[in-house]
């Protein structure tokens, strides 16, 4: 039995799909928690239908999204609408420390699996609910996707940051991937740990209500302060030097903000003639002539590759990194030295490199103990070994549409 990881004493039940709930459960599973993931019989988690797939051949056991978001979990199938399925579910709830779900509040109420009901079965249960807009409020039953959540949380309006010169033609943007969903998931995990501590004193569980919109709005928190300090509205328009500049063969991300870095910047550029002009003598004048300054700097960057600029900037202590494509990420020495990518061997999908530990804990490390589960892979383990059903009965359960 795994004892050596930070969360190996925690037993988690998960009934969630796609991204936010599964990711919340993943970050806890990867630190040792036991996660039993419930999927609908036959269909499974909708993420199984999401690419990328190896060689673009869709297969429910080979979705990279599913494989990444469900590492270290035990997988069972269970029909929560079937009376016997409900009974089995409640037996599992009885044994769990934590229940993670990301279903619409109306559905959980309909199933009678909302917190009011579950706490009666297990007063120690910590239930973490992750939804688009939370359990209360006028938009509670509104539908979102990643796109909608990212924009309604206020971050889309500022993306791409410090870059746009024609806002009418350059709309607010979403980020690559599922940032709002995954962020909501992580917010749920952090909140769950707080509840674990609370339970140590009180002996009782509680309900955690995560609104994806609030999780995203948390990312523009200074805006709320600034709004009440200085009445500013942040948006995606370019103000001052852009943070991403073109260079030879690509782009460089570069933040020589303020006076701090001016001297270093000038040294890096070789104390150019143009910089000695009155126009660039201090912070205020430089702000007035920033477009001209940008022009000069780009003249310099366009003659150098991102690697060259990166090395020079770092030598002058200027915050700077190249804008890497994925192939460049994989070639980077840094990730090899850190052993960041890990090979996971999956019984159907095969062996692939996956993103590894998001942090290195020296005594109780992040670890892949098992790949993402096949659909219903651990039905026998859970229903027979733990809940006492015989193997033959599993067949009956399957044929009755319970599992």
């Amino acid at each position, binding site marked *: 039995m795994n004892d050596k990881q930070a969360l190996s004493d925690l037993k988690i039940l998960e009934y969630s799909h796609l991204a936010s709930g599964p990711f919340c459960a993943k970050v806890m599973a990867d630190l040792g928690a036991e996660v039993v993931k419930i999927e609908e019989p036959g269909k499974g988690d909708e993420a199984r239908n999401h690419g990328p797939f190896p060689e673009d051949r869709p297969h429910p056991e080979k979705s*990279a999204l599913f494989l990444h978001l469900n590492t270290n979990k035990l997988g069972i199938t269970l029909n929560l609408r079937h009376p016997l399925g409900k009974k089995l579910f409640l037996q599992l709830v009885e044994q769990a420390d934590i229940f993670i779900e990301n279903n619409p509040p109306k559905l959980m109420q309909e199933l009678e699996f909302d917190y009011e009901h579950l706490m009666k079965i297990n007063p120690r249960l910590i239930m973490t609910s992750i939804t688009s807009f939370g359990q209360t409020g006028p938009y509670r039953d509104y539908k979102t996707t990643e*796109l909608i959540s990212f924009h309604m949380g206020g971050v889309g309006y500022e993306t791409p940051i410090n870059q746009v010169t024609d806002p009418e033609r350059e709309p607010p943007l979403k980020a690559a991937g599922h940032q709002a969903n995954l962020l909501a998931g992580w917010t749920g995990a952090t909140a769950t740990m707080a509840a674990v501590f609370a339970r140590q004193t009180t002996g009782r569980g509680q309900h*955690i209500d995560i609104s994806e919109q609030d999780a995203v709005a948390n990312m523009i928190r200074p805006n709320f302060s600034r709004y009440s300090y*200085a009445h500013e509205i942040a948006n995606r328009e370019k103000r001052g030097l852009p943070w991403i500049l073109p260079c030879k063969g690509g782009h460089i991300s570069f933040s020589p903000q303020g006076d701090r870095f001016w001297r270093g910047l000038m040294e890096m550029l070789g104390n150019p003639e143009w910089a000695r002009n009155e126009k660039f003598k201090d912070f205020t004048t430089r702000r007035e002539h920033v477009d001209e300054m940008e022009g000069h700097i780009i003249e310099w960057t366009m003659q150098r590759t991102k690697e060259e600029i990166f090395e020079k900037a770092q030598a002058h202590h200027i915050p700077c990194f190249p*804008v890497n494509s994925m192939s460049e990420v994989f070639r980077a020495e*840094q990730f090899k030295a850190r052993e960041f990518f890990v090979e996971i061997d999956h019984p159907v999908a095969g062996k692939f490199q996956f*993103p590894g530990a998001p942090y290195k*804990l020296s005594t109780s490390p992040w670890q892949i103990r098992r790949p993402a589960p096949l659909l219903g892979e651990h039905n026998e383990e859970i229903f027979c070994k733990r809940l006492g059903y015989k193997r033959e009965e599993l067949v009956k359960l399957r044929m009755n549409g319970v599992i």
Partner: protein
Amino acid sequence: MSPLPLEGIRVTDFGWILAVPHCTAWLGALGAEVIRVESMARPDLGRLYPGSAADGIPGINRSGGFNGLNYSKKSCNLNLSQPKGVELARELIKLSDIVTENFTSGVMGRFGLDYLSLKKINPDIIMLSGTPLGKTGPLKDSVGWGPNTQSYVGMTYMTGYPDGSPGGLGGTWPDYMVGVAMAFAVMSALHYRNRTGEGQHIDLAMGELVMTMLPEGVMDYVMNGRERYRMGNHDEVMAPHNCYRCQGEDKWVAIAVTNEEEWQALCQVIDKPEWRRDERFSDPLSRWKHQDELDRLIEIWTKEHTHYEVMEMLQKAGVPAGPSFDTGELIDDPHFQSRRLCLEMDHPEVGPRMAAGLPPKWSGIEPHYSHAPLFGEHNSYVFHDLLGLSEEEIVQLVEEKVIY
């Protein structure tokens, strides 16, 4: 309500700017005693950022960005470039459970405040170190902020307009995101310590964290050798899927159609039943191929309405849609208000101001919010009450610029 979950835990916090300060705001609001160690020799840039000075008047206690991020914490002054300063820091760490920092890689080591040194004086200390790319490896000493680090790991390459340059995310991503994950990692380590008595070092690289949240881009390259490219607001599969202009200046609504049912509902709301029979749009693959044309047609309709009107009409019909909110709109939005993420905090120097609290709502935890500390506000508490120095000793140390 019950006592706070992290009551009795003490954090010596060397964090500055954004990521670690967000982490320790979680810890402080959840009941830990967070003591920021600050110095005029190297003031937190967040305190000095001119853009958010209260009413345009700058001051070390007047920064909105700082005050809205560093609530529920204490502040003491220690100049670590003085040996006596380091000595006092070590005394404080002896009394602490957690140490947090996000200096460039070698800095804590130079002061003799690296994990192995601290473990000798406090064997079960938990130490969190945040860096752009990690405390090991050829780039361990790199200087970088959120916007740059996200670029190193492929995020900006995949974000932006299809015909434009790579784009950074709003909100100086991933700084606050990292803060949330840091709080999780610290609490996980604390949980382990409660069970085993063992502390540990947490080496958290911002870039590695961002990549954990980019599986689509990473795995398409791993599995298929394919570079995912910028596609604006479009999606690999769904269409229509974009932001559309609405009435007013720079007002947009996001709309995403995920299945046939929603597509038909959209056509009904816009009153374009003929789109359902149009060859260009009648099946999901054709819709996706012709989405630029479809986007233009949809925008003719959205431009006649406000973004709120579009949201209400489409949500009523079961279609995911909502405005791309700017901060002012968000603050005024009835749903966002009902969630009470933003609260008013009274501050001794700038008075009552708005700050974002912690996003979760717990049924059994009421986070504790107190105003961000004035610079050095708790010097007397830390040096006299906690470390037992006399008034005279403290005065002397102030003169020597140790308490500085």
